């Protein structure tokens, strides 16, 4: 029995290694610095996590089908910019549409998500019907979106948002910022889609074995298009959220976030080989990532050296993760 217990402990450590290291790091930082465990700081971390989680949940769908989405970062910038142009104050001197009244915030969310979803559908079409590998298809869309966004905004940064928009980040409900509520809402919807709908189950089936999915009568093409469409809508939403928090946006908004989101997903346990991953994986991955960044800041690690630390964490986390599946074979 001792042996099996040891085995169990070993397995537990391998399966949860990253999370354990994270806890140790957070607790250490918390006790060595004075203002880490303050409500204000925690709320700030959660605010940062919220948009990242929305991106990660979007990308998780693509990764579960053994794909990826490189267009996420540019899509976020595009979404942020569209939202920005539609929600500027009338008295702002550099207003993008000088004569247009700012639109309703909810309407803008829908517009942003709708436009992004349309582009995501195009990506999905190329992946599903023309068999373009997701890596390439989303790379192409990344370039296109960046170009469109540059042309649309004329590469000028946006600012002077109406209060209703910045309140999306600053406003609170039961003491918690709206941004965080949005992330919670998106997580719940995603959980529902992943577990309670055919679409979610088909997503896992396609990731697990695309040939078997075809034989089992899974509508593979339709499902793939829906996944990239849904993901793009979520990137748009994330862009909207980031714009609200920053009070401004530019084409560079969200640049490189797709890589961090993919890394976060895999750290949390979404397998890049497909078929595995939960909503909780994305939540854990994003939490690990953001906590790591903050903890490193608090420990006074040089900002550039932080990149190195993050890289090492990805190496270690994924090596451990892969071990899990190899052991199961």
């Amino acid at each position, binding site marked *: 029995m001792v042996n099996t217990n040891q085995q169990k402990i070993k397995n537990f450590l391998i399966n949860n290694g990253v999370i354990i290291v994270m806890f140790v790091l957070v607790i250490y930082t918390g006790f060595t610095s004075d203002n880490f465990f303050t409500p204000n700081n925690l709320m700030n971390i959660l605010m940062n996590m919220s948009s990242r989680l929305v991106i990660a949940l979007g990308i998780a769908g693509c990764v579960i089908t053994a794909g990826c989405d490189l267009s996420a970062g540019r899509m976020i910038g595009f979404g942020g910019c569209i939202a920005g142009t539609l929600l500027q104050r009338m008295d702002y001197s550099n207003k993008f549409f000088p004569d247009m009244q700012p639109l309703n915030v909810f309407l803008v969310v829908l517009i942003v998500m709708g436009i992004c979803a349309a582009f995501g559908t195009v990506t999905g079409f190329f992946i599903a019907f023309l068999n373009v590998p997701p890596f390439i298809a989303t790379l192409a869309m990344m370039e296109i979106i960046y170009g469109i966004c540059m042309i649309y905004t004329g590469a000028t940064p946006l600012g002077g948002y109406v209060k209703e928009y910045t309140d999306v980040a600053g406003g609170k409900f039961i003491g918690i910022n709206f941004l965080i509520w949005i992330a919670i809402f998106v997580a719940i919807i995603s959980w529902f889609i992943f577990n309670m709908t055919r679409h979610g*189950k088909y997503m896992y*089936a396609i990731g697990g074995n695309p040939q078997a999915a075809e034989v089992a009568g899974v509508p593979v093409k339709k499902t793939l298009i829906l996944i990239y469409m849904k993901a793009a809508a979520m990137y748009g939403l994330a862009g909207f959220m980031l714009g609200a928090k920053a009070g401004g946006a530019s084409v560079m908004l969200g640049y490189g976030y797709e890589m961090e989101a993919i890394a976060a997903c895999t750290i949390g346990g979404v397998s890049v080989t497909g078929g595995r991953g939960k909503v909780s994986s994305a939540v854990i991955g994003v939490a690990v990532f953001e906590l790591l960044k903050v903890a490193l800041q608090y420990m006074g690690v040089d900002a550039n050296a932080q990149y190195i630390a993050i890289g090492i964490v990805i190496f270690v986390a994924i090596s451990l993760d892969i071990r899990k599946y190899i052991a199961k074979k």
Partner: protein
Amino acid sequence: MAEYKLKLEGICKSFPGVKALDNVQLSLRPGTVHALMGENGAGKSTLMKCLFGIYKMDAGEIYLDGEKIKVNNPDEAMKHGIAMVHQELQPVPARSVAENLYLGRFPVKRFGPLQVIDHKTMYEETEKWLKEVKMDFDPKAQLGTLSIGQMQSVEIAKAVSQQAKVVIFDEPTSSLSDNEVEALFRIMDDLRSKGVTMVYISHKMDEIKRIADDITIMRDGTYVGTWPAAEMTTDQIIAKMVGRELTNVYPEKENKPGDVILEVKHLSSIHEKSFQDVSFTLRKGEILGFGGLVGAQRTELMEGIFAIRGIASGEIFMHGKKLKLRHPVDAMNAGIGLITEDRRGNGIFGCLSIKDNVSVSVYNKFLRAGFILDHKRINRVVDDSIQKLSIKTPSMKEHIANLSGGNQQKVIVSRWLASDPDVLIMDEPTRGIDVGAKHEIYEIMNDLAKQGKAIIMISSEMSELLGMSDRVYVMCNGKLTGEIDQTKDMTQANVMAYATQF
């Protein structure tokens, strides 16, 4: 010189649950072509893989020129001068002929401390070896642009270039045209005259007559005997290959085939070498067997009906109505189910649970409010099938990859039972599963037939084919060559005769 170039003695090899080779021997006279024959699953390929070091044999000895040798991997086999032309060619189609020929042993030249590939030598040598097998295409040509037959001659050239003294041909002609087969035989004749010893695995009687000097026949993993080819008639060979009594492991059945449910008319594949002009009928409550040898295109035909493969022409009728099938979903909606042959490749979802594997095809039946999955009802159905088919698993949440082959197959059967098709196509339903599970699958099949469902079963196991089927169609090289029912004599020899027609 030893009497035999190569001699295998007392070879035994077991796989989990199966004894694949039991005390098998093979003796090759120098400079001859030795045909190795037997039904599918008789152990021919396994024996050759043991010789070539792909499998590790449990017992037995290999003598080369009278001296005992050990072969632990293909590399060692090649060093002993043994080469193999595989049934499934394994080249790198995107690279040149020369690169394929020299893969893993590129000629190099030194540039100080650097070793670089000597392309000039490689191309020149390749050209020389290609001439050796009477081929004269460009060594720089991309391999993928060649025909299967030409690719095969590259493989043979490779064997020759390695100074192979023994060359194994594992069903080389299964995908060749007549002209290519004749070209292959000329190369073999030439090699024979140069003293190369060859093993030739094939099912095709006319080829054996044409090329072989000696014949060794295997059956069920055992050695039957060796004879000079000239002394054996085709009938004698078939009799020796099948010569076993049917043991009654098949459950009693009382199927009463009813009306025609499925009718296939002149179905042809988009590929010329695949099934052509196939017509057949299937009745309610019938188990219809499809016999034939490997490569007879039975799987392709069924996958064509299920809309996985392209159809060039032909019609499919179900309940007298013409079907338009463009996607497996269409076939399923029409009431057709398919259990594929390659369980791992396109059957199971290895990283998903038993529950997900059973329910993946039937989510549409278990919805609340039109879109929310009703997990309670799904669980009940999955639980039922685990009970009913006695699937051995700790829980329905277990990953299917952790189950044995037989239990995996039962999960796939459960999937189709849940979707309740009128016609269920089962492609090699008992391949790679143990005897107990086999019997259970047979009982499920009979049960379905009794309920009035119609079953098509592809089986390469002769006794299963004859024991389970109410009627048997035999295919050979993409064509339907015969129909045998119980009124006509349903015997192994008859099936074999149809299966080796071309």
